[in-house]
């Protein structure tokens, strides 16, 4: 029988206002094995912790039950307290009488009764607790960053700066991501390329950083500190080590009609291409879908003109295996497809564009050389209508329920730049709400309205009708309580943003959780915002939720800090609450292996002593304690009851249930 001490916390009035803490301590004192029971205003305070430590010594306690807030909040605090007093930290049990009792009940009598029951369950469990010791596992001192946009670049630079090797895996032929396509950045209107390209060059020149461009992660095995990753380097049919990036091939290639993805199809490029002048690495890539040589074997112009002899039509996908201690996800976002929003006539008129397309039309390196011209006839537009929230904040199934966050600011930027460069244009912005929180953001928006005379109209556009070279915009003005009809030359749609399509399969590979919108979930929305709940996986940038550049960079550096903290350790302390099979009961059925989301369970053939001095060879489950996260899925799946979770054994859980039902 354990000698149990019970400590009931008031949590100020958080618990004490709804639960009669004195009574709880009094009733629980009569439970079997309880040798000491008390209550105190703030158990987590210095004084509270000292009281626990003194009681452990004074009453020779072998188990401690703390009736307080959720174990997520202070379990670690109290474990440390008890450890200092010489008690094994896993001899502490928390009865959550705050989140699961006082906060959700009003009636004091019922709440007190429930608090007693929860306390009893914890006492019943602590009787069956056994001291547990944490093991350790080594840490591979190299990090992987998946995605080479501004988030991935910043994370990689920071990790490299701390002296660790980092690999960036980028699926496009160049790093840089969405920011390379942007013209100016809010709220300072500095040029995106001017602040991004030096970082791209830094990343390329950093000895600690290795960039795998035009590559994808194809498999991930292992666990925190010890991931084994296979990287697929897609065939670009150009030898990266030989190509000098002179660009001659991209001028001579006879296949001229390839939609230029970098300019979102607003112009064409050749079948062999370098996405843009500042690409990193500056290496040509052959688009296999359009290359005549690869499709029919007839052409070979690029190979003839290449003085470096870099063209290699026989190149195959290559697979590279590498080990990492930590993985950072920085897969970013994309604007949604606008197929479902044809009330804005996006498919009917080339003059209806998305904001990202508009960004290219305003960009000096874009298809129009930075002069704003209508895609349909190359004329200068005089009336431009911006529509916000296209697909954002939608309550129906075709859009996204969330606010895409960046649209209000970039639309204000677009509107302002239009008015500044072309004062003869009339600019309208239709909005549901203008959301511009952020440093110098609201001031920026007000400048668009007050100094630049942009017409902000609260209301939505209902219909865009392309007719006679104009776009007839029908909209509601909610404040003026009238319907508006505007003959516009261009309509710009602020399309909602969504996580990149590669995120979902990647999450499965990493066993990292996602929300219903396919954004990666953080370990705690407030306190652990850059970590995934899966150990060793970190989140950087818009893959976790819509973000602007400053926020992305901040999160990227935060993720790097977490990675550096991890890689600085030589060994990791493992959670001792892991699964453990009883080999004598295990029938080798593989049920547990199938349900394990972490790949922690393997099977081995092991010799057992049979009757009459014989030996039997049996297939039994083995758990790698360094990989096991203690989720308990295997203990439920095991048909023979062989699998048990240390610290949460079937017996302990049943004892809790029995105590509750008593």
């Amino acid at each position, binding site marked *: 029988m354990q000698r149990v001490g019970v400590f009931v916390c008031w949590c100020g009035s958080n618990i004490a206002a709804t639960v009669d803490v004195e009574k709880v301590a009094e009733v629980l004192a009569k439970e079997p094995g309880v040798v000491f029971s008390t209550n105190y205003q703030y158990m987590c305070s210095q004084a509270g912790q000292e009281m626990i430590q003194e009681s452990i010594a004074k009453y020779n306690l072998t188990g401690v039950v703390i009736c307080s807030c959720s174990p997520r909040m202070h379990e670690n605090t109290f474990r440390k307290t008890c450890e200092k007093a010489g008690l094994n930290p896993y001899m502490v049990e928390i009865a959550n009488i705050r989140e699961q009792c006082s906060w959700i009940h009003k009636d004091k009598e019922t709440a007190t009764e429930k608090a007693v029951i929860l306390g009893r369950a914890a006492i019943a469990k602590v009787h069956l607790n056994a001291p547990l010791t944490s093991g350790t596992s080594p840490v591979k001192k190299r990090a992987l960053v998946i995605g080479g946009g501004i988030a991935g670049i910043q994370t990689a630079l920071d990790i490299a700066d701390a002296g660790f090797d980092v690999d960036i895996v980028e699926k496009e032929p160049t790093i840089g991501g969405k920011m390379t396509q942007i013209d100016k950045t809010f709220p300072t209107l500095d040029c995106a390329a001017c602040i991004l390209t030096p970082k791209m060059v830094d990343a390329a020149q950093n000895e600690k950083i290795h960039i795998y461009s035009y590559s994808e992660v194809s498999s991930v095995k292992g666990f925190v500190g010890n991931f084994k990753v296979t990287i697929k380097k897609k065939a670009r049919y150009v030898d990266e080590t030989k190509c000098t990036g002179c660009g001659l091939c991209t001028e001579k290639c006879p296949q001229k009609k390839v939609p230029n993805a970098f300019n979102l199809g607003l112009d064409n490029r050749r079948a062999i291409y370098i996405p843009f002048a500042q690409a990193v690495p500056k290496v040509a890539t052959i688009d296999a879908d359009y290359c005549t040589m690869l499709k029919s074997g007839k052409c070979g112009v690029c190979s003839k003109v290449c003085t470096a002899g870099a063209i290699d039509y026989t190149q195959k996908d290559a697979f590279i295996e590498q080990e990492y201690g930590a993985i950072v996800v920085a897969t970013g976002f994309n604007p949604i497809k606008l*197929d479902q929003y044809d009330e804005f*006539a996006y498919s009917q008129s080339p003059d209806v564009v998305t904001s990202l397309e508009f960004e290219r039309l305003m960009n000096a390196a874009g298809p129009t050389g930075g002069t704003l011209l209508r895609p349909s006839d190359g004329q200068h537009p005089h009336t431009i209508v911006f529509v916000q929230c296209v697909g954002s904040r939608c309550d129906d*199934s075709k859009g996204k329920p969330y606010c895409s966050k960046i649209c209000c600011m970039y639309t204000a930027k677009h509107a302002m730049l239009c008015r500044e460069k072309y004062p003869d244009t009339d600019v309208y912005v239709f909005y549901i709400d203008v959301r511009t929180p952020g440093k110098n953001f609201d001031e920026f928006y007000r400048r668009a309205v007050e100094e630049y005379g942009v017409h902000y109209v609260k209301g939505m556009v209902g219909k*865009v*009708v392309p*007719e006679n070279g104009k776009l007839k915009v029908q909209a509601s003005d909610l404040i003026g309580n009238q319907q508006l009809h505007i003959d516009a030359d261009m309509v710009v749609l602020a399309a909602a943003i969504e996580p990149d399509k590669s995120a979902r399969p990647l999450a499965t590979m990493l066993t990292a959780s996602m929300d219903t919108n396919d954004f990666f979930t953080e370990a705690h929305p407030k306190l652990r915002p850059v970590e995934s709940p899966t150990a060793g996986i970190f989140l950087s940038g818009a893959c976790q939720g819509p973000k602007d550049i400053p926020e992305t960079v901040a999160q990227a550096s935060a993720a790097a800090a977490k990675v550096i903290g991890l890689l600085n350790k030589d060994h990791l302390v493992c959670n001792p609450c892991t699964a453990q099979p009883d080999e004598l009961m295990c029938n080798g059925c593989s049920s547990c292996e199938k349900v394990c989301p972490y790949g922690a369970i393997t099977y081995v053939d092991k010799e057992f002593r049979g009757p009459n001095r014989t030996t039997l060879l049996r297939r039994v489950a083995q758990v790698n304690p360094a990989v096991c996260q203690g989720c308990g899925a295997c203990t439920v799946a095991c048909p023979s009851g062989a699998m048990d979770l240390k610290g949460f054994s079937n017996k302990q859980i049943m004892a809790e249930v029995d105590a509750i039902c008593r």
Partner: protein
Amino acid sequence: MTYSYFPGCTLKTKGKDLDIWGRASAEALGFTLEELPDWQCCGAVYPMAKDEIATRLSSVRALMAAGEKGQDLVTLCSACHHVIKRVNNDLRTDETIRDKVARYLKLETPYAGETNVRHYLEVLRDKIGFDVLKEKVVNPLTGRKIGAYYGCMLLRPASEMGFDDPENPTILEDFIRAIGAEPVIYARRNECCGGYCTIKDKGFATKQVDAIMENARNCGAEELITACPLCLYNLKENATDGLPVAYFTELLAEALGVKEAAK
């Protein structure tokens, strides 16, 4: 293939063309529309009130009659289609409505929306196939520039009608292509024709129709087709200077070479 057919009141009076050419074309395409013997009014307007049961009953009777014969129920009038399809959806998804209807009609087993409701155009698209239709065309309407006018009833609400993309529908354009003509896509093809407002405010209907006509004409349409008797009425009677408007079945019959015979 034989389908139960619900013509509805208008197709027996003002909208006879829609009906006659629809049936004749069906025979030419190898399916039969078997008119339900005792069909009643579809309900005319889909009741928005959840507790309005009586106006749903006549639709349910038609649905059950088709179901008893083991046939899908085909409609031509887009208003009938709208009402019957949505009522069927109610009986599929809303337990309260299902129970109340069962009690009204004294049903032993409640009707739970088992019958499939198909619009004639859906039969062409999903059952016959526009490619098959194209092969059966004997008088292709080559060179004719036709604008499809959808109106609202067939498309909305998309979640219940499941007919086509409400903002960018293509079924009528595909139909126009199948009969050998050239579809003209114009943005106002799914805008309101003025609907019943014409009774109270003709001016409003005229405003709507003129905008539709102007848009269609400017995009190059020389004639319009529709599946809705009310749309046809508004487009014809309330336009200041309209394009010719016809039911899609008339052009279908023409292309299949059965137009004269049917009359």
